[in-house]
């Protein structure tokens, strides 16, 4: 057994603490090339990650960078710095700890590169930036350890893909570097381990004691949830009672808009004026920091929040987590519940609030899964090539490189281990010449191959542009909101929402009702409003799809004879559906046809998640149009898509030919807005569109133009271009999520149950109340435009001026 150095062991003893078994294991395995620690919140996970560094620095206090700590959140880096200083000072270690994020001052950054601290705390983006400088080899040569915090969250996004490429680059600069990952509970630890390790090295996985099972249940309410909707407003009273009974409650919502409405309603019911705050990603940073500080100081009884609080510092005294709306994903639910783990050895307490009748089923299924510790998650798949393109450019910014060596280095990143040399060369070609079929840029290549075979930037000034473009976080087109005459921002709304506002409209932001006054220099100006019925701002915040595993669980639940675990009202509803039609089955596809209010309806229970069902709606209505069924519109949820039109569907089978649906994706869907958004995200990452140009476009400078034009141009003239290939790959997940449609087709294998009825069915009925109906007519926009311009002309009276 490797003992901790005396002063560190004494420090534990002085504080009356025991070294946790997993902390001890981390010290013992400190020399492993890769180590993954999976531990619940509050288990001293971060300290476990740093103990070996403290021990090594105690033994050998040499100067230079020893440990690099990477976290997905800037705030977390700053927080760790504070928390780590305590043991370092109390133990009496001579260790310099600094953080480096987008908020670090210019002079501080310069100094850090010249004279790095022992422990540097940073984010994936700041690390990528450091690696783009020529002095990176000198700065990182002595690096011994890298600690990746919240790696489970990073592993789900391109930020993690980028980080792993950066670690591969670091490993070349510092071959002795050892890797440590810190993770919350995940479904497949080995996958995270493979992600972390330098391929093909193994990664040892250490599992900390997960602590007692959480105490989770559905929140009991006086009235049943409504048939549709997502706000959970019916449960306000019951939630308020729980807040009163607990010290501090986190109230999670799936979307920012729902958090805003709920917060508003909660305050209307807050007769005792309990201190309750709101926290989500569209609020101004200062506002968020204020709420966080109040929370840490124990001044708040509850916070209404979104995924913005999924990660980050321990909140101290949280003793209850309430999840409003179906959790969509069991793993995230379990991780959220872990936020209430204020005492390592006490069970976390959580309550679920289904927002509508169907979500009752989903919540019960999620509860079962959480109790069985049956977590879900889809494998991430291969590292995306847009991230690789950016990585190649970062390499080029740092100095000349050899293509073969870079390819080898890339394969060390676990998520890129399957990358072929040809695929790599395509990315290099894209970075060098644009990779167009029409070789237009031979004179102006971005990267040039020198006589000695190394690649370098043609124009060294390009390095600056590359640095400004680093990162994989998607910018959304948002506009700041502020009170007229005040400089301080309240938060942000989506540009398209801002565009839909006219003077006098009211909406909710940061829990306040405000009145739209106008636009000024790309800022939405508002005033305070006493209105009671605000509209709700739309936010880009990701709308999660119900996971494959949870959808499957729901389908299996439907197969039971009766449902004692469900509340009576919900069990009766399912029973009625079984009597008048049938319930969807895991290996079959249920399609219902029925007339309603003069329209023919088709309901497809695909259970493929919201994004895929939306895409399915687009593809099916297109096919129905070809079959002359005159579809008029559709609405999609996580489990079904409801289509209405003029003609009845007599045979459902021809609609679900896999080849036709795939062709629809390739041809017709290629022109759709979701594909353009998918393209844009990748084009920014790969460096085809510069981030700063995206900003300039927002400010309305005429020199910049929409990325949609680039997409349309490529689609027309160069459809096999690398960026289009990447866009098609990305369409298998994310917004388009065609992969889930493929999964649905593979699962049901043409076994279609087409039920024709004379009226709407119990399971389809809630869909009629869903928001987000999509009109099918492609000419709809033109028609709406015609109506609206004509109306404006008439109202203003200047329509008469025509020909004047």
């Amino acid at each position, binding site marked *: 057994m490797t003992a901790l150095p005396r002063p560190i062991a004494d420090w534990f003893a002085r504080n009356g603490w025991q070294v946790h078994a997993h902390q001890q294991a981390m010290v013992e395995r400190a020399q492993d090339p890769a180590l993954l620690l999976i531990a619940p919140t509050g288990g001293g996970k971060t300290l476990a990650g740093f103990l070996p560094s403290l021990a090594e620095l105690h033994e050998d206090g040499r100067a230079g960078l020893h440990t690099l700590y990477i976290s997905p959140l800037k705030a977390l880096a700053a927080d760790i710095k504070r928390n780590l200083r305590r043991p370092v000072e109390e133990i009496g270690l001579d260790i310099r700890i600094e953080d480096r994020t987008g908020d670090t001052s210019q002079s501080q950054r310069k100094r850090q590169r010249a004279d790095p601290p022992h422990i540097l705390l940073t984010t994936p983006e700041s690390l990528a930036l450091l690696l783009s400088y020529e002095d990176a080899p000198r700065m990182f040569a002595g690096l011994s350890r890298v600690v990746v915090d919240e790696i489970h969250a990073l592993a789900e996004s391109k930020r993690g893909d980028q980080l792993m490429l950066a670690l591969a680059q670091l490993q070349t600069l510092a071959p002795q570097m050892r890797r440590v990952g810190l993770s919350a509970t995940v479904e497949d630890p080995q996958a995270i381990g493979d992600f972390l390790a330098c391929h093909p090295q193994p990664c040892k996985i250490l599992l900390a004691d997960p602590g007692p099972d959480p105490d989770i249940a559905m929140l009991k309410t006086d009235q049943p949830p409504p048939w549709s909707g997502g706000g959970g407003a019916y449960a306000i009273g019951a939630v308020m009672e729980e807040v009163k009974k607990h010290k501090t409650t986190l109230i999670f919502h799936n979307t920012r808009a729902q958090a805003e409405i709920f917060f508003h309603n909660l305050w209307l019911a807050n007769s005792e004026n309990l201190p309750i705050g709101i926290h989500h990603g569209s609020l101004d940073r200062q506002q968020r920091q204020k709420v966080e500080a109040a929370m840490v100081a124990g001044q708040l009884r509850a916070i209404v929040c979104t995924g913005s609080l999924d990660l980050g510092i321990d909140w101290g005294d949280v003793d209850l987590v309430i999840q409003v709306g179906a959790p969509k994903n069991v793993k995230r639910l379990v991780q959220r519940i872990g936020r209430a783990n204020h005492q390592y050895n006490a069970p976390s307490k959580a309550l679920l609030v289904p927002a509508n009748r169907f979500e009752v089923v989903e919540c019960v299924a999620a509860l079962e899964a959480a109790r069985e510790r049956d977590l879900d998650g889809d494998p991430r798949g291969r590292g995306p090539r847009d991230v690789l393109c950016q990585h190649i450019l970062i390499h080029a910014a740092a100095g000349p490189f050899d293509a073969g060596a870079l390819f080898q280095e890339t394969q060390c990143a676990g998520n890129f281990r399957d990358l072929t040399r040809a695929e790599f060369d395509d990315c290099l070609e894209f970075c060098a010449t644009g990779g167009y079929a029409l070789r237009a840029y031979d004179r102006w290549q971005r990267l040039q191959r020198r006589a000695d075979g190394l690649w370098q930037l043609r124009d060294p000034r390009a390095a600056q542009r590359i640095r400004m473009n680093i990162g994989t976080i998607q910018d959304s087109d948002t506009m700041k909101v502020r009170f007229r005459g005040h400089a301080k921002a309240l938060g942000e709304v989506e540009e*398209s929402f801002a565009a839909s506002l006219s003077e006098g409209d009211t909406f909710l932001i940061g829990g306040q009702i405000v009145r739209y006054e106008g636009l000024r220099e790309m800022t939405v100006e508002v005033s305070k409003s006493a209105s009671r019925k605000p509209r709700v701002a739309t936010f880009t915040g990701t709308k999660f799809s119900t996971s494959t595993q949870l959808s499957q669980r729901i389908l299996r639940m439907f197969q039971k004879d009766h449902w004692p675990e469900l509340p009576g009202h919900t069990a009766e509803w399912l029973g009625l559906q079984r009597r008048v039609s049938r319930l969807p089955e895991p290996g079959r596809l249920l399609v219902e046809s029925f007339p309603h209010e003069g329209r023919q309806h088709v309901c497809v229970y695909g259970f493929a998640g919201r994004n895929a069902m939306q895409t399915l709606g687009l593809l099916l209505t297109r096919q129905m149009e070809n079959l002359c069924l005159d579809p008029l519109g559709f609405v999609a949820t996580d489990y079904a898509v409801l289509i209405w039109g003029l003609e009845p569907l007599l045979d459902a089978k021809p609609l679900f030919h896999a080849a036709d649906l795939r062709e629809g994706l390739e041809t017709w869907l290629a022109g759709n807005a979701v594909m353009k958004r998918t393209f844009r995200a990748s084009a920014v990452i790969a460096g085809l569109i510069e981030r700063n140009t995206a900003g300039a476009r927002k400010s309305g400078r005429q020199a910049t133009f929409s990325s949609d034009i680039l997409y349309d141009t490529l689609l027309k003239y160069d459809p096999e271009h690398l960026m289009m290939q990447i866009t098609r790959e990305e369409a298998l997940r994310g917004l388009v999520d065609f992969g889930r449609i493929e999964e649905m087709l593979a699962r049901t294998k043409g076994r279609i149950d087409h039920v024709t009825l004379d009226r709407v069915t119990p399971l389809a009925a809630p869909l009629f109340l869903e928001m987000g109906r999509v009109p099918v007519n492609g000419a709809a926009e033109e028609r709406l435009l015609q*109506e609206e311009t004509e109306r404006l002309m008439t109202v*203003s009276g200047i329509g008469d001026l025509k020909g004047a």
Partner: protein
Amino acid sequence: MNGYAFTLAGAELVACASGALWWADRRLLCFSDLHLGKAERMARRGGAMLPPYETQDTLERIEADIRACNATTIVCLGDSFDDLAAADSLSEAERLWLTRLQAGRRWVWIEGNHDPGPIDFGGTHLAELHSPPLAFRHIARTSASGEVSGHYHPKARLSARGRGVSRPCFLIDGDRVIMPAYGTYTGGLRSDAPVLSTLMRREALAVLTGTKAHAMPMPRGEALE
């Protein structure tokens, strides 16, 4: 032509849905802000390497418009090339294409701020074209009337049943028309920008381009002092 018909200083004009301006009496078709060679210029300056197909695409649309109305006079209202070097960068095929379009037509290149000097293409090179009652120039003058100009790439936004739509547009009042940018790789300046609200009269119209031309009151912002 598919477009919005209006009268400027007595001249009967059509603001085409394509973004071109048609003066039927003179069989004159006007395009503004083509920005040919934009992708090449960006790459040359070390910027992004955009898909190098925009000159081809712009020429295709010009050709379709010219054929549709059988124009005999073509006016390119300035910023026809993204810079003077971009004019030299056109591929041989694109140069021939342009020459073919010019054959048998009067072709006028108006100077713009991006292409202020002579360019190596056939046709007439002018700072302004006076064709009474109209004057064609790149940048609008506050005191002018009967004026056709470009430069600003105006676009207008409106909300149709909650759907925000933004389109390049013509701005039209009793004194002038400001044309939208025609080039494939061009963006726009919102019509509520102060400079446009200052130039255009209160009763100005915005004619949105696209598959159909839609006229509406010009969305305005605060005018400059």
